[in-house]
């Protein structure tokens, strides 16, 4: 179909999976971190904040190399997580999802945090006086009001995950069917004579996927906006 090779199809399927899993798994972490950074005061806050921006600041290959060191077979975290959950990252699609999630994380975090900070805290107070403890208040008031930001964060992370290449290829290499995402496949095509057209076709697939995600998010966003509009 569309004349893509089986390898290319695998890359497309994999990229979708990796971007989706990376985004969805990162989302709760981003929510927690964004809430902590927006609302709490604690020592080392600025350090944590800076740390969470690292994937943005460092060249992707460096991030990928750190991931390789930390989550590889011999890596401290890699071992620990394997012992605890039985998940291996090294040279698995899970590792690609981790890399993409990590690279998109700061974008998601920032968008969500921005929305948390923009919320009228008197509404949280009102929920409190009505008997909602902080958890319920978060769930019933803060989170719904921050939904536009959560959505933007998720879409940014998803898009970034679709395009992420440097960290992924450095961390989990470029194994067709296992860790070869669309960008890795594109890269491979650009490295040989005559590969440009195939690279371009694959780029178009990425664009289409991203467009669909974007349109979905816009539709959702419009609904949300209509709901929480203070005025119309």
């Amino acid at each position, binding site marked *: 179909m569309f004349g893509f090779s089986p390898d290319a199809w695998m890359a497309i399927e994999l990229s979708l999976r990796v971007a989706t899993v990376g985004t969805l798994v990162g989302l709760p972490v981003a929510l927690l971190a964004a809430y902590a950074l927006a609302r709490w005061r604690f020592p080392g806050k600025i350090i944590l904040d800076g740390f969470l921006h690292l994937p943005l600041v460092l060249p992707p290959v460096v991030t990928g190399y750190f991931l390789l060191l930390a989550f590889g077979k011999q890596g401290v975290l890699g071992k620990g997580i394997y012992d605890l959950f039985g998940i291996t990252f090294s040279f698995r699609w899970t590792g690609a999802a981790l890399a993409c999630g990590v690279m998109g994380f700061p974008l998601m975090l920032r968008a969500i945090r921005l929305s948390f900070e923009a919320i009228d805290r*008197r*509404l949280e*107070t*009102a*929920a*409190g*006086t*009505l*008997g*909602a*403890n*902080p958890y*319920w*208040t978060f769930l*019933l*008031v803060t989170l*719904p*009001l921050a939904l536009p930001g959560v959505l933007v964060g998720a879409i940014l992370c998803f898009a970034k995950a679709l395009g992420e290449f440097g960290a992924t290829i450095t961390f989990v290499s470029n194994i067709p069917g296992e860790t070869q995402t669309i960008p890795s496949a594109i890269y491979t095509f650009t490295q040989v004579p005559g590969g440009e057209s195939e690279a371009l076709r694959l780029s178009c697939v990425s664009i289409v996927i991203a467009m669909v995600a974007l349109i979905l998010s816009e539709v959702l966003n419009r609904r949300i906006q209509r*709901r*929480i*509009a*203070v*005025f*119309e």
Partner: protein
Amino acid sequence: MKEKQSLLSVRALQRRPDFTLDVDFESNSALTALFGPSGSGKTSILNLIAGVQRPARGRIVVAGNVLTDTEAGIFIPMHRRRVGVVFQDAQLFPHLTVQQNIKFGQWFTRTHDQGLPLEVIVEVLGIGSLMKRRPATLSGGERHRVALARALLSSPRILLMDEPLAALDDARRSEIMSLIERIRDELAVPIVYVTHNVEEVRRLALRVVRINAGRVVSTGTAAEVLGS
């Protein structure tokens, strides 16, 4: 922590850049009106009772429950105080419908010991036709009526109302005053009622605390405080 003493006892000191609140009053009445000019500190007192804010020094006791006591280090968080607050500017949840707004408090009360049923409240407040709407589409007065319903339906142990009728016309105001009278007389829920309307004070208040510039000027019955 139960103490045999007055229904409501407030002693609080709170400093702000241009304003110091320093009040001390008690009341055993079912409805206590806080009466005073704009900027005198009425809303600030409600916030302290509700636990929205913590006084620099002070002690707040409602029906024998110590809610705040800075010396003893007691500060019950607001969601465990079971206060029903009608905020001066409504503070409806914009993402919820009117119905979801007024039922919000019910999700957190195990005991539905609320005396007045939803139907009665909705009827008197005249918000039956608004149930599916969202706050953004309500008129000013409608918003305040929904806020009132929301507080009344949260099964509170004390009701704090901040100028609940200021945005309403006389006919509606009178009906709602009857409702408040019923709550005052039939239910064991003490009410602290902020207003600057003399008529409301005369009709509703069993005890009036007159505030000015952050201090209690006088306390007594409506007739005593306002003159007759």
